């Protein structure tokens, strides 16, 4: 739907005229667009890195760490999540047309949504203070699904640089 040229263009044109967009796109400072990208990668490392460690632990790596102890890392993982929500919004403000007219962007968001829902489900099952009856098989399935979704989100995110149809609303097509 959003690939249809013109439909959301007034919205894109408006964002692309805001002062924040202009600063992100035009500033030559390393603390503008480059540092937002770098922060987005730090958030990725904190959230997905620790979630992957948790997933591999559920699958049997490092068996002497009690799984429930990974709940101590949850605040760090949520810090990574919010860091990336914030830096992601800034990246979106910098290039709204580029992201929102690319189906791969929605795939990335969908995968992040599923992976986050899986983390919440895993938290309920194995990271609570009072652990409910063990469901080892189900949790292992969740761990595998989590790894697949995060890997997919990373690949989709990286491909955003190569698969976009339009860079800006004003810049026309291709």
């Amino acid at each position, binding site marked *: 739907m959003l690939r249809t040229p013109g439909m959301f263009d007034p919205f894109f044109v408006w964002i692309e005229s805001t002062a924040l967009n202009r600063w992100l796109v035009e500033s030559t400072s*390393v603390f503008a667009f*480059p*540092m937002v*990208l*770098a922060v987005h*990668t*730090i958030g*990725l*490392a*904190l959230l*997905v*890195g*620790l*979630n*992957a*460690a948790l997933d*591999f*632990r559920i699958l049997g*790596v*490092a*068996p*002497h*760490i*009690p799984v429930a*102890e990974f709940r*101590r*890392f949850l605040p*760090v993982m949520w810090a990574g999540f919010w860091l990336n929500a914030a830096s992601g919004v800034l990246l979106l403000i910098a290039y709204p047309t580029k992201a929102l007219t690319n189906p791969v962007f929605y795939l990335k968001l969908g995968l992040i949504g599923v992976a986050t829902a899986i983390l919440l489900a895993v938290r309920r099952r194995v990271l609570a203070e009072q652990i409910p009856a063990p469901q080892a098989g189900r949790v292992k399935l969740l761990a595998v699904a989590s790894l697949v979704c*995060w*890997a997919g989100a*990373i*690949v989709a*995110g*990286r*491909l955003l*640089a*190569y698969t976009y149809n339009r860079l800006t609303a004003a810049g026309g097509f291709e």
Partner: protein
Amino acid sequence: MANFQHWLEQTLRGADTVAALMQTQWAWPIAESVHFIGLTLLFGSIAAWDLRLLGIVKGVPIAAFHRLVPLSVLGFTLNAATGSMFLMTFPDQYIYNPAFHLKVLFLGLAGANVLLFYATTYRRVDVPGARDSIPIGARVAGVTSLVCWMAVIIFGRLITFYRPNGCTGDEAITFLARCFP
């Protein structure tokens, strides 16, 4: 040092098979994706260990966290392989790039930190009685590791914004050349 950089650039240029492969349509994006996945495996397993050293998790022996090392090794191997492929494709874009210089510096510091930790503090924390009292050396090693690996990620991400464009003739002479005349 500039002569070493030039030698390294010329040597890496010899890997023209890798360079040709990397310049096919999807090879570069795939290698980048693998590099980012490797980054999460490496950083996540190391961060869990660092946070344990800092006392975020108590009552679990540090040796238990040691078993995450295979994940770190897997992540590091993926990234060393894909990283070498980037370097062999466009050696000058990295070898004369100040962001890449800083990335390598912090990689070295992270490596030195872990070696120093194993040579000194690890023996003192890897005993049953040491569960909840964390020596200051272990805390320093944990913070140093987190800071170094975050710096590696940040400067790695900044590489693309500091690509060298050859010499203009008025480059300041520093320890590392930013171009080769």
